[in-house]
C-alpha cells in the first residue's frame, strides 16, 4: 500500500525519476486499455509530459485489496484524481488492478492498469485548461 502512496506523491509532484523507480525495468502503465508507457525512459517521459501540460492534480487512493504470495501480488485500489489548479474538483474516478513483483526485497509495479468509472482523464480533456468537459460536476 505504501508503494501506491509513493506513486501518488511522485506523480502529483512531478518527480519523474522517483515515479519510474516504482516500476520494474520493463514496467508498464496501462490506462483505459491502452499502453501509455513501458520501460523506464517512457515512464519518465510520461511525467515530463504531464508536467508540461501545466495542471495541478492530486491522486487519492483507497480500498486496497491485496492478494498474492511472497514473490508476486495483485493490488486493487480505487483512485480519484482531483484538479486543484483552480478550486478543488474531482475530475476522474477509476480503479487500479495491478501486478506487482518483489525485486531485491522491495515491491515494484510490473503492470499498473487503470480503468475508468467516471469523468475523463487529462489526456482525454477532463481538465479545465483542456477545454470540453470542464465544469461537468
Amino acid at each position, binding site marked *: 500500500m505504501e508503494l501506491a502512496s509513493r506513486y501518488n506523491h511522485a506523480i502529483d509532484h512531478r518527480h519523474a525519476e522517483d515515479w519510474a523507480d516504482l516500476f520494474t525495468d520493463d514496467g508498464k502503465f496501462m490506462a483505459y486499455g491502452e499502453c501509455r508507457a513501458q520501460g523506464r525512459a517512457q515512464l519518465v517521459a510520461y511525467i515530463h509530459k504531464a508536467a508540461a501540460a501545466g495542471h495541478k492534480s492530486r491522486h487519492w487512493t483507497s480500498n*486496497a485489496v491485496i492478494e498474492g504470495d511472497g514473490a508476486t501480488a495483485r493490488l486493487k485500489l*480505487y483512485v*480519484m484524481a482531483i484538479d486543484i489548479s483552480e478550486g478543488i474538483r474531482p475530475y476522474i474516478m477509476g480503479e487500479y488492478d495491478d501486478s506487482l513483483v518483489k525485486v531485491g526485497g522491495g515491491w515494484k509495479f510490473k503492470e499498473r492498469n487503470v480503468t475508468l468509472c*467516471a469523468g475523463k482523464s487529462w489526456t482525454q480533456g477532463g481538465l479545465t485548461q483542456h477545454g470540453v468537459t470542464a465544469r461537468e*460536476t
Partner: protein
Amino acid sequence: MELSASDEFEIIELVSRYNYAIDHRRAEEWADVFSPDGELWADGKLRAGGRPALVEHIHKAERTGKKIRHWPCNPVIEGKDDQARLRMYVLAYDITDGIRPQILAEYDDELVKLDGHWKFKVRRVSACGGDWPVHVQSK
C-alpha cells in the same frame, strides 16, 4: 490477546471488500463480509439483518440505477482476541453523471473473528453531511 498487525490489515481489507461489493452491486459477496446474523444500521435504524436481508439490500440499491463509489478513511481499530471495534469515515460519491459527493458519514462497527476470518457483526453508520442514497432514504 491484543490484535496483531495482521488482524488490523485484515479488518482494513474487509472494509475494502465491503466497498467493492456494494459499489459493484455484488450482493452475495457483500453479504459474505458480514457474520450470518450481521446487521447494518443507518442513523439508528436497522436497514438489514441476516443474510437474506443483506442480499436484498444490494438488489434494492441496484434497482435505483445509481452508480455510487464509497471512499473510506481514518480507520481506528480497537479490540482483543476475536472481537474488535472499528471507527472510520466514509465519503460516498454519486458517479451516475459526473462526480458528485452524495454523503459523508461515520461508521462505528462491531467485528468478530469467525473461523479465522474477520466479519462485520454490526455495522452502524451515521450521516454527518449530504444526503442518503435513494435506497436508504426510502425505508
